[in-house]
């Protein structure tokens, strides 16, 4: 049974923050200091990053839980992906507008996770809008659509629970829409 919601994205995309903002419990994360100087410069307000999974849960009542995972999007950690993707009801790809490889990174993650979780629905959240005003949302969205990914794409401030919540609502709507289409 699909009991998982998965957030995936590269370092600095906001996975841990997004999961924290909608969870009923403090996410369990393995955070380590960033050792890469270039990454430290790129993420000036971030000194630690998640090196393995984030895990949290959302209570549905009567003891039922929706398990929420955050998975690093870096290719060298892809051995984790099949394990987490199995039984996912939905996958949300988070990408930072500051990421110069935002589009190829997102395309890769969508392709890989669609293959791993063919039953899942997908949505994309673009973070860090306030720090990258020149990011062309429409070009990004149109490029995804051009590659066959017609799915909800929206700006999201991972710190704002209402925005992450809305992104999840859009994802769930897609899931239901698949059943009536």
């Amino acid at each position, binding site marked *: *049974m699909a009991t998982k919601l998965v957030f995936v994205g590269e370092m600095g995309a906001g996975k841990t923050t997004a999961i924290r903002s909608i969870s009923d419990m403090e996410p369990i994360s393995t955070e380590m200091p960033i050792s890469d100087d270039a990454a430290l410069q790129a993420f000036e307000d971030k000194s630690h990053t998640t090196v393995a999974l984030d895990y949290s849960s959302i209570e549905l*009542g009567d003891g039922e839980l929706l398990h929420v995972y955050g998975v690093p999007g870096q290719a060298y950690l892809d051995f984790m992906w099949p394990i987490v993707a199995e039984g996912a009801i939905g996958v949300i790809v988070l990408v930072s507008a500051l990421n110069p490889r935002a589009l190829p990174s997102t395309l890769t993650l969508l392709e890989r996770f669609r293959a791993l979780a063919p039953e899942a629905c997908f949505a994309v959240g673009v973070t860090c809008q306030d720090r990258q005003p020149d990011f062309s949302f*429409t070009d990004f969205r149109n490029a995804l659509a051009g590659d066959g990914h017609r799915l909800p794409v929206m700006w999201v401030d991972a710190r704002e629970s209402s925005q992450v919540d809305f992104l999840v609502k859009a994802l769930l709507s897609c899931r*239901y829409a698949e*059943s009536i289409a």
Partner: protein
Amino acid sequence: MSAPARKISAAVIGCKGLDVLHMMRLKVASSLLMAEYIQADVQEWNQQKVDLLVASIDDSAGQQVLREAGAKGVPVLAVTRKLLSGLPIPGVAHGASVRDIFQQLRQLLQQVDDSGERFLPRTLFRSLAEARGTPSLLHMGLVKVIIDAEQRQVTLMRDIPYENCLKAAAESGWTLSLLAPGGGVGQYMADAVSHHAFEDFCWRAAALSAEPLLPQDMRGLVQLRGWPEVTTGQLPMQWLLPMAALMIRPWRPERLALATGGSLDEIARIMAAAACTGLLDTSGNEAAATRSGNGSGKVPGFFSRIAKRFGLNFSKGLQG
């Protein structure tokens, strides 16, 4: 039993070359049109689209205006010192009373009306449709915006809340001036107060408007080309399911309303927002529209409980 409420229509009356006396009488006469359920907006004519032009035609400038109006197909009510019987177009005598002007306006506007649609309220989006993508300066009362659809940007020129501009977009009485592509917008940027994504402006205005931004053909197949760039959380929750369905395949609006538990009016508002932002795809074919999903709308109980946890109810579409 009371008579059904008659809808007030809106007309734009252009004027050119009138002196103060005739201008004042024209304005009073125009205001009397409310008795005919016509809300008339009198504007100085600068080639913009109007329903009727009232112009003094006795000098060479007036003759030029007459030619320009003729070229644009704009009906003209002439104000002239010449014999009215010799005029090839409707006219009133120089010094005509408010009553004379009113009667002519009423007759001419009703002729326009009889020939086609009722005068539609000049909302921001109706005005913008005439611009056909050219950057435009639009204003109504205190609200003043520049819309550059090609650059996908809306610029507020007055320091008033964005939300107020969005609400005002659906009201009538907007006037539009075309700006020269390229440099035309630049000269106003020093006074710009804030910039917003064009899609955000259109979709949020659509969400706040009781009617579609522009009339839609509700018979064909429609699909969404992409998810609009709207501030997250600002779209109505009940739009999510129809929008998600429109991302998957083409739908007939009526069928979509039925499948999602929404109203046809709601679907029309979504379609209008999509049309205004270039996201409405009407090229779908029947084969794609009958894509075979399971079509049942039945989902496992666990999914329903997740949806409920996020404040959604899919039992009759998405009710939020």
